[in-house]
């Protein structure tokens, strides 16, 4: 008798399970999580805090906020940030002042931990929401964040 009850219970549980999948088969349009990525490229918006890559925003006068204090370079766990700096004469005070020559960012080594951005005292570097980082050449992953000819904004002190 247990032979037949086993068959009955087996078929019953299988049908119950198929009921769940059948429900989603019929209501296939409900609760869709999947995003059809390349097609929704224009409307896809990442969250504001999304860690895409480190960028240095510049304003319309080609000025950034980086004083070259190198705190991000020290905070970085894997050497993704390299700052080449120099000393220039400050026009107002006439004293020597640190200024960046190149803020080099190795995207290929970055683990997106966010410690550099936490460490920055002047909010010179921020996260961008770009997520498709694939390039054809490995060298393209090394980026110079400050634009050519850019200078530090006046009044920024660390």
């Amino acid at each position, binding site marked *: 008798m247990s032979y037949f009850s086993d068959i009955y219970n087996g078929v019953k549980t299988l049908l119950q399970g198929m*009921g769940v999948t059948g429900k989603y088969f019929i209501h296939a349009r409900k*609760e869709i*999580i999947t995003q059809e990525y390349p097609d929704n490229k224009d409307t896809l918006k990442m*969250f504001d805090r999304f*860690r895409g890559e480190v960028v240095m925003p510049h304003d319309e006068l080609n000025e950034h906020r980086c004083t070259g204090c190198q705190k991000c370079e020290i905070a970085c*766990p894997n050497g993704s940030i390299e700052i080449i700096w120099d000393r220039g004469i400050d026009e107002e005070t006439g004293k020597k002042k640190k200024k960046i020559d190149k803020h080099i960012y190795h995207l290929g080594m970055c683990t997106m931990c966010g410690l550099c951005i936490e460490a920055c005292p002047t909010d010179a570097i921020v996260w961008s929401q770009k997520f498709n980082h694939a390039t054809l050449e490995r060298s393209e992953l090394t980026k110079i964040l400050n634009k050519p000819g850019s200078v530090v904004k006046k009044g920024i002190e660390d």
Partner: protein
Amino acid sequence: MTNTISDRFKTEEYFINMGPQHPATHGVLRLILTIDGEIIKNVEPDLGYIHRSIEKMSERDSYQQIVHLTDRMDYLSAHMNNEAVCLLVENALEMEMPERVKVIRTIMAELTRIASHLLWWGVMGMDVGALTTFMYGFRDRELINDIFEETCGARLTMNYNIPGGLMFDILPNFQQRVKDFLTHFKTKLPEYDTLLTNNVIFQKRTKGVGYLSMEDAISFGTSGPVGRGSGYSCDVRKHHPYSAYTNIDFKEVIRTEGDTLARYEVRIQEMWESIAIIENLIDNIPEGDFKVATKAVIKLPKGEFYQKVETARGELGVFVVSTGTKNPYRIKFRSPGFSNLSALNKMIVGGKIGDLVAVTSTLDLVIPDIDR
């Protein structure tokens, strides 16, 4: 000639590699199987394919930098791994965290636990032959990942805990999002039972398979759902409470059967418990600071420190020997996956190859956690 029939059809023991590229090992784990026909005589795990020397790298890093490496050990419970290092540093410096930090950390940890168990549930179903569960598990996990992405900025390697609190405060819509997820998820979890737990094929493949007695569970040092499936009460949240677990009441899920189905049921029940814990906390997140100011260079006092937390897989221990400098002299991670894997031989010897996949699946192995 004395060539009898039984001589002619006798079988011989032979070796076979399962992995390192086998899909059912969920990573680069190599199992050297000694097999007689279909019966498994011995299983020897061979590790080291994804060894990144995280312990050695930590000796070079400051205490803030170590946290982000722990994301990469057990990536499915990244949040608890971070918490372990942060708690160790905070306890060593005798810092008292604000209630807000504790509660948010606990909510995040429980969300991570649900996400981890959901992934495990999907993959467990797929290992025993049910492809649908994989889709359903990932569908619901996606909602948690979205919450993490909005709050922490990353979906998997969050690095949200820092020594001294949290990296950012939660967003105003965080509570509503978590509540929405919980109401959604509470309707889905019973479906999982209908779909997989009660399924007759699944029951036959898991009941009585991979038995681990409570004595063995203790002597192999298993923890987490593997230990609790054998009746070993080993929940760190209960026995050595940390963060907000000190104040809240929750049940420790224990099954005494010790087989694959018991470990499965422990995880399913733990998801219900996690829901209850989050519901308990989500409405009364206390106001206050989300981080306490620390020195830019954290130096631990001279001595030895140990902190353990309950990750989705079991007990993660962090042991630090400090000489008073800004780097640890030696750091050791006691990962749950490594100890759980050591019990595999005991569970499976005498079983069939097909059972091995089901048993490794309920161990819920994350290979980067085993190798580090």
